[in-house]
């Protein structure tokens, strides 16, 4: 793929705008809360788009297209039973506690609700994980640009990291969120035409269905048994593992996304953030997954398109998106498409950096290192942390390029840590008897259960490190779903048992933190389209419709 001068001009204009937005926002920053939490001042349409964009990193965009090519429309389960129901849940049920508690971060909520050790456990694992995942996506981006455009790995990684660093350093969370909105529109306007062009070239949905195996164009028909679908998952594992534990664990507890909603300018806006975000999120599969399916159909059609082969054999599905762009976009739109890819990377990375920043500054530094400093000191720490966070991500990117196995191992461990989280939050928010000791031991035993499940099972040669194999899964995806299910259940049961055996907090201490002791706003005076329940109902109906349409 070669770029013309006009493509570079577009990329340069984009860089100028994101930096400019950072520069303009800078004037508003005078306290650490301005920098780290946007002082709860952002309008709802902005927080909702930022809510999706922060998750829509380059790995998500490239990876979803790649999974579309590999698994077909089944990939949409990640949206249609995964993300969207969880987004409804956090908006309707959980946001009153996050926002109402006045916590500045998710770990801080755990501190208010439970105790210091639970917060520290969550804050430390979260901080380490964010830095690593931003480094890993930086590595993926550098590799992609090297492969597709022949750009130097170092140059593209350094340039993109430097730009994210400058605009988050200048304007903090507000700057990151504002830019995420620009990036969201760019991702949609840059990738949607590709989906339309590729699908129409492949003969529309009908033409694609005719050319592809049935399983590629159905979401539910083939999940009755794991051997019938390419993901190797069966309905229960899919619904409980992905649809419940993993998705709710991510969308309802991950500070990267929750932070966007917590920056909203009112409780009502905070609750509506994930609900409004659910509308565009529902249709994202048509932009990010369907092109991958079209790519497979096109490569069956002898029109001169093929998914490139991988060095070690098989097809390199990760290149589906960029090769489609090269075939369907002339110079000009090609620049827009690549800028959109860059934008998706930056939105993901800025999301990581701002979340890391807040957790480090408030939960670890202020919580454990220096408690009662003047606010100007924490603002300074937050600015320094931005630089340190980006530097650590860069270091991780280089580590990833040399020690791929370490990265795989760490991602596996992070998975173990994350799997039980949702049980802790669910119990913490809805059962006032839950105690800090219960939450802490529940999290640890959930993580241990996850590790044990992995160590005692086998899937595609992964696992088995505890010696014996109790069960063999048809795919690593099924294995992951079941690890999550066991981790969640263990955490749930242990948290309840230990809570019952330990002394609960008094009701006064739990005000605005737990269901039953919190005033849930009903917003009766607002018009229906500004109330959470009607919005959630519309999304649910549309969601059921989508599932039936692609059944």
């Amino acid at each position, binding site marked *: 793929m070669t770029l013309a001068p006009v493509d570079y001009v577009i990329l340069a*204009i984009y860089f100028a705008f994101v930096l400019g937005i950072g520069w303009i926002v800078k004037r508003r920053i005078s306290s650490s809360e301005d920098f780290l939490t946007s002082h709860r001042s952002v309008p709802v349409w902005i927080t909702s788009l930022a809510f999706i964009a922060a998750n829509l990193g380059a790995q998500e965009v490239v990876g979803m297209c790649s999974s579309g090519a590999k698994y077909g429309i089944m990939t949409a389960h990640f949206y249609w039973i995964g993300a969207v129901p969880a987004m409804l849940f956090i908006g309707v049920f959980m946001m009153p506690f996050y926002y109402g508690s006045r916590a500045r971060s998710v770990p801080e909520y755990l501190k208010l609700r439970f105790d210091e050790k639970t917060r520290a456990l969550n804050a430390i694992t979260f901080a380490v994980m964010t830095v690593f995942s931003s480094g890993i996506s930086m590595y993926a981006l550098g590799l992609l640009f090297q492969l597709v455009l022949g750009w130097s790995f170092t140059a593209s990684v350094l340039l993109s990291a430097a730009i994210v660093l400058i605009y988050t350093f200048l304007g903090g969370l507000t700057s990151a969120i504002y830019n995420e909105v620009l990036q969201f529109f760019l991702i949609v306007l840059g990738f949607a035409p590709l989906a339309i062009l590729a699908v129409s070239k492949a003969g529309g949905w009908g033409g694609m269905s005719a050319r592809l195996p049935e399983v590629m164009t159905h979401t539910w028909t083939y999940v009755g048994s794991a051997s019938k679908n390419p993901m190797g998952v069966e309905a229960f594992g899919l619904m409980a593992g992905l649809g419940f534990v993993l998705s709710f664990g991510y969308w309802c507890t991950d500070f990267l996304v929750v932070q966007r909603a917590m920056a909203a300018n009112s409780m009502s806006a905070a609750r509506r953030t994930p609900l409004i975000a659910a509308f565009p999120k529902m249709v994202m599969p048509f932009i990010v997954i369907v092109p991958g399916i079209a790519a497979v159909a096109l490569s069956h059609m002898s029109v001169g398109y093929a998914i490139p082969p991988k060095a070690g054999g098989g097809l390199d599905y990760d290149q589906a998106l960029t090769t489609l762009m*090269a075939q369907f976009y002339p110079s000009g*739109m090609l620049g827009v498409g690549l800028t959109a890819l860059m934008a998706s990377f930056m939105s993901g990375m800025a999301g990581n950096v701002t979340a890391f920043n807040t957790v480090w500054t408030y939960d670890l530094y202020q919580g454990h290192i220096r408690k009662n400093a003047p606010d100007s000191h924490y603002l300074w720490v937050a600015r320094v942390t931005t630089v340190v966070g980006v530097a650590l991500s860069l270091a991780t990117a280089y580590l990833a390029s040399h020690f791929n196995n370490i990265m795989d191992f760490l991602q596996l461990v992070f998975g173990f840590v994350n799997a039980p989280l949702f049980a802790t939050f669910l119990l913490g928010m809805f059962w006032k008897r839950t105690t800090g000791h219960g939450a802490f031991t529940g999290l640890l035993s959930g993580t241990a259960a996850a590790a044990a499940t992995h160590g005692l099972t086998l899937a595609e040669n992964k696992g088995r490190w505890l010696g014996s194999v109790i069960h063999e899964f048809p795919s690593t995806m099924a294995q992951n779903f079941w690890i999550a299910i066991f981790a969640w259940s263990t955490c749930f049961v242990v948290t309840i048992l230990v809570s019952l055996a330990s002394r609960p907090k008094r009701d006064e201490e739990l005000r605005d933190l737990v269901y039953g002791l919190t005033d849930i706003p009903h917003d009766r005076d607002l018009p229906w389209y500004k109330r959470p329940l009607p919005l959630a109902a519309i999304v649910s109906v549309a969601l059921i419709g989508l599932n039936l349409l692609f059944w």
Partner: protein
Amino acid sequence: MRDLRTPIGIFFALIGLIVAVTGVATEGRAPLETANVNLYCGLTMLVFGGLMLWLARRSA
């Protein structure tokens, strides 16, 4: 910046204009596509940018 819609509007109007003009001036075509992708996509972005600017003006 009073309203985020202003910079977003300017950005897409500008990019849309550049892409649409490229479409008219170069008649550049992608390998698998015979339509003038630049012209149509450029106009779409121009309209989107204009809409954002109009919304920002209206509420100012």
